[in-house]
């Protein structure tokens, strides 16, 4: 395209996460040859899918200058809610496939609804997003714990069999969740970079006042970013539930931190305004590769796992830091 664009493209800092990921891949292969196998890579990508999909929604929220701390709890509550619904429908609706389809639809609607509720409280209620979502973080998980009586909510067996392929199935040798992750990533990238909505999100995060004076409907755009994130959480949950077929108070624990970390490690500014979907995807993969490598070796004391992860995250953030 233009000179400055290509100049920016050659900015080494932009490639921090990619460089970090490549280094990790090399280290992983060196430590354990099984790391570089197709099966292991698919395992890692599949388990990244939930966090990755949520991260893409989170990317929009963070670019717009917001934050959502509730995504993990929201996923847990959606998981619990959809399992309860599917179990209840199993009697009245004949085909397990139809029940599962209804459950999935319900999850997406519930996610979108929760997200819009956040957006509504933040834009109309004029409450800080940090506070709104910190509040719902507690509320969602509490509701799930209540629904589950402190234990687990488990999907009926025949439904589990009908639903299983959504997580365990493959298409052209690539697991379904990875396909979905890919689709959501591409859609997210297009939405952010090639639509008016995406531009508005960036404009609001960069300077909300300027956007408002430039006739951008700031409240509506913000509302939609939270709704979008909610739908992403819904999609992630739809993929998550068939894995274990259950939801418990530990479901989605800390997902919010992982999702936010993936976004920031991927080069999105925590202050908002500027962000990258591709970076976010790489950030999410990078985070799960770290723990994969740690699981595949025992050269480092298990007590130090967290320290290794912390060092890698800081190192990657350093590689992609902005010049002042």
């Amino acid at each position: 395209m233009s000179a400055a664009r290509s100049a920016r493209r050659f900015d080494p800092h932009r490639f921090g996460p990619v460089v970090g990921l490549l280094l990790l891949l090399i280290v992983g292969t060196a430590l354990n040859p099984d790391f570089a196998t197709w099966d292991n890579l698919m395992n890692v990508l599949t388990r990244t899918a939930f966090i990755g999909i949520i991260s893409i929604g989170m990317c929009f929220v963070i670019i717009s200058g917001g934050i959502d701390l509730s995504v993990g709890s929201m996923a847990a509550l959606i998981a619990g809610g959809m399992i309860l619904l599917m179990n209840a429908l199993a009697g009245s609706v004949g085909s397990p496939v139809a029940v599962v389809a209804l459950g999935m639809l319900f999850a997406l609607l519930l996610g979108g609804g929760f997200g819009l509720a956040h957006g509504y409280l933040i834009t109309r209620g004029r409450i800080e997003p940090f506070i709104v979502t910190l509040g719902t973080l507690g509320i969602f998980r509490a509701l799930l714990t209540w629904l589950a009586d402190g234990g687990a909510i488990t999907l009926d067996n025949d439904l589990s069999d009908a639903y299983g392929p959504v997580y365990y199935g493959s298409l052209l040798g690539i697991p379904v969740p990875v396909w979905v992750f890919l689709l959501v990533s591409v859609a997210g990238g297009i939405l952010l970079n090639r639509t008016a909505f995406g531009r508005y999100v960036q404009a609001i995060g960069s300077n909300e006042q300027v956007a408002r004076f430039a006739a951008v409907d700031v409240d509506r755009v913000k509302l939609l970013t939270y709704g979008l994130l909610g739908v992403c959480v819904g999609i992630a949950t739809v993929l998550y539930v068939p894995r274990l077929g259950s939801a418990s108070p530990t479901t989605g624990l800390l997902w919010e931190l992982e999702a936010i970390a993936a976004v920031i490690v991927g080069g999105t500014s925590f202050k908002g305004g500027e962000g990258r979907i591709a970076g976010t995807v790489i950030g999410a993969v990078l985070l799960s590769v770290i723990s994969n490598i740690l699981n595949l070796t025992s050269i480092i004391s298990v007590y130090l796992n967290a320290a290794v992860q912390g060092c890698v995250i800081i190192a990657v953030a350093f590689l992609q830091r902005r010049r002042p």
Partner: protein
Amino acid sequence: MSLHVAFDGITKEFGPVRVLHGVSFDLHPGRVHGLLGENGAGKSTLMKILAGYHAATSGTLSIDGEPVVFRTSRDAEKRGIVLIHQELSLADDLTVAQNMFLGHEIRRGWLLDDRAMRARAADALRQVGFERDPDTKVRDLIVAEKQLVEIAKAQLRNARLLIMDEPTASLTPSECDRLFGLIERLRRDGVTIVYISHKLDEVERITDEVIVMRDGRFVARAPTAETPRQRMATLMVGRELTDMFPDKHIPIRGPALGTPLMAVRGLTVPGWAEDVSFDLHPGEILGFAGLVGAGRTELFEGILGLRPRSGGTVEIEGRPVSLRTPRAAMRNGLTYLSEDRKGKGLHVTMGLRDNLTLMTLRHHARPLLSPASEERALEHAVASFGIRGNPQGTAASLSGGNQQKLAIAKFLEPDPRVFVLDEPTRGVDVGAKRDIYFLIARLAAEGRGVIVISSELIELIGLCHRVIVMRGRRVSATVPADRLSEEELIAHAIGTNAGTNIGTDIGTNARP
């Protein structure tokens, strides 16, 4: 006791932009110097170099004959040089006493000695005539009181040279009088004073000599008593006004005839504007004059729906419209470019293209945004508005004048019938100013209605077909082109005794 300051060949560059081109002059001890110049003449930059906020790119600054380099404002303060900022630099949430000792706290061991600080603060405050408790939060002070606190703070630091940048911007006449009394007393105590102001009557009243700068250069210095105001103005502007402005007698299509393009009736923005009515005709440039706080900006923010309105109607091209958001205004053919360019006008960290097309993205969506189409819009704008700078850089990389041109281009992208510009030439150099004036005239000639809100009377007089003057939230007068003069506008802006407060500038730049 007093300080003798000598500037010798001072230059200053901000990136590629050179704002000072080798300035040389002296400040004599114990005198009050009026430093004059238009916006962008380099007065503030030079004074910030003197007070240690900026470093000169080249040249020498000498204090009492000794060359010095101030790395921080602290270094300058040690030599007794204190700058009182145009935007007062006090922390709102701290008390008066805490602010006065900020960074210079008195300690007793590890702890702060609040009692001693309070006592010394009270002492200094009494000397400047500040009568409130030093434990008052600065947030609760009015601007004039903050000013006194700043001066008292400077005295605490044993200031030998005090720089005041537009100190009377937000003061009432009686507060001004008190300040002038204080300046007189400081001078008697041997303090050297640099007084920056656009208000020539004040300069005439309190300074011993005037120093004029223009376009980053020293122009002239002369004893105040020998320099009539007219001479000061001519030195500042440096050219005949007629050069700056386009020919006003462009045939316009009968402003008095037909339906007005925009008609506002009885509009009230609580706290800011009351019962404001006016018409704007196609091809007309309508000015809005008034003091700070007269409610001009807020009136238009109210019209755009950014502030609550409690009454009144707006019609555009004869249709009543209900404008609740800037978006609704845009759809009805009205756009508004704020006076706060960086805070409300442009995304300075974003590219030129993204800024330009933000309001009209729908035109470039098919349905996905087409970078090529946006690029064409930018090329067109760069050519037709004369925007100079790297078209692929960020808006922040442009000079003030080019940023303003980009902002104007941005708010013209939706092709408004009515275009409102608030302080269109603030922080813009003289060349770009002229471009903007001609651009405004061109927009009017195309049959748009243009509203210019400005604090620069010369601008309103040179540009507008009619000027509405606001005073105390209300329209106090509508002055037609043939009666436009500084005296007339000021008389309506301040309401009474027009003779005492004549200057080139009745507004200020100190809006928060």
